[in-house]
């Protein structure tokens, strides 16, 4: 077979092949972009969430902030206040409802893990036992 006789068909076929390959490349790139857009958006959101969670629950100044709890209440009412490492164990007695509120609001505002928060009414006053970690 003399290919020269079919040079026009070969030329058109090769051009068509080139156009089809170009189109295929475009479609593949577009599909890759779309799927990566989705994957990257998910990854970006995930990383941002992790960073936010880390910053919230891994606050390095928590120890300092927790030290600020003790002065909120009269020393006479602080039965125990022990800060060791990343753990606080404390108990308060003879608290009125305002003092109890003040303490609980302070604890709630800090990103600590509340392990124990026990309030017992003794007469008209309250006793609070608190254990938290961070």
């Amino acid at each position, binding site marked *: 077979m003399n290919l020269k006789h079919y040079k*026009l068909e070969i030329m058109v076929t090769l051009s068509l092949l080139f156009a*089809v390959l170009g189109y295929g490349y475009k479609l593949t790139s577009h599909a890759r972009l779309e799927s990566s857009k989705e994957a990257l958006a998910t990854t970006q959101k995930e990383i941002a969430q992790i960073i936010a969670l880390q910053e919230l629950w891994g606050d390095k100044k928590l120890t300092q902030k927790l030290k600020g709890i003790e002065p909120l209440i009269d020393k006479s009412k602080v039965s125990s206040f022990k800060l060791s490492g990343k753990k606080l164990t404390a108990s308060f007695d003879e608290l009125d409802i305002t003092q109890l509120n003040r303490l609980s609001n302070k604890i709630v505002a800090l990103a600590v893990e509340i392990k124990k928060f026990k309030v017992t009414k003794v007469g008209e006053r309250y006793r609070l036992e608190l254990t938290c970690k961070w």
Partner: protein
Amino acid sequence: MPNSNKGLILLHKSGAVPVVEAQSIDVMLSPALYTLKQEALEIGFAHQAKKLAPAVLDELLDEGEYRYGAFKQNEVWVFVAYKPSQVMEALRRSGIEPSSVHKLYFAQQSAEMFATPIEVDAHTVLSLVGGVVTVMPKALLGQQRTLRFDESFHPRSGGVSLGADKSSLIATKEAIVLSIALVVWGVLFGIEGMGYSHQKSQQTHVIDEMLSQHTVLQSQYTRDSIAQKYRKRDTQERAKRRFLKEVSSVVRYGGVLQSLEIQGETFKAILEVKTPSSYNTIDASIKVKQLGNNQIQLEANA
């Protein structure tokens, strides 16, 4: 000197001389296969003349599909028209495949070579009459000698393509236009594709930048582990705080806290309220239990 190294044959209605067996040949048409008109027109270029050819030759042509050629000879433009179907028929009659024809020439292009008549067949010669190559009966020549047609008749330039390779399904011009269009499309698609690839790499760049600031998060495994740890803590601690907030709101509206305990995953609070029935629904996550004596118990889980 001929401008081509391909074999040249002279094609007449009755056949071709000399007989050549080649894959690609040039063909010189005898005047029997074309119509010619000479005009002294002020035209600068051959392609302009070729465009004018249909109009110049119109009155000389019969019905049918023609192709045209034009060349300048002695300051006069020569316009030529030929029927491709007629040429192809003559080629086939001579045993030549139209697809093997490289270029077509017209006998008029080598007019001076026909000063001595050229024998085409037993009864016909081509001769120069008034500067025009003409088909003549051999009998008119009498004893005048004739020459043989050979390669020396090859014009220096000005050949035309037969137009279509007849084994092709598509004409040359259309094939070229179509090919160019397809290649342009291919290039445009390629450029568009590269644009998408570029956008993709830009997106990755944003993530890379974010990760470069938090190197510990580069591994998916580490990310999953950290996320799991903090998400669980976040959910549990938010539940505890929500519970405390609800208890606090009951106290604010006149409730008296009796006891409250958050330990492990269970949260419980007992409160004394004036109208226990009005606290039936507080928060979807908190169960309210009536204990009697105006007391309610709030209970929730992490």
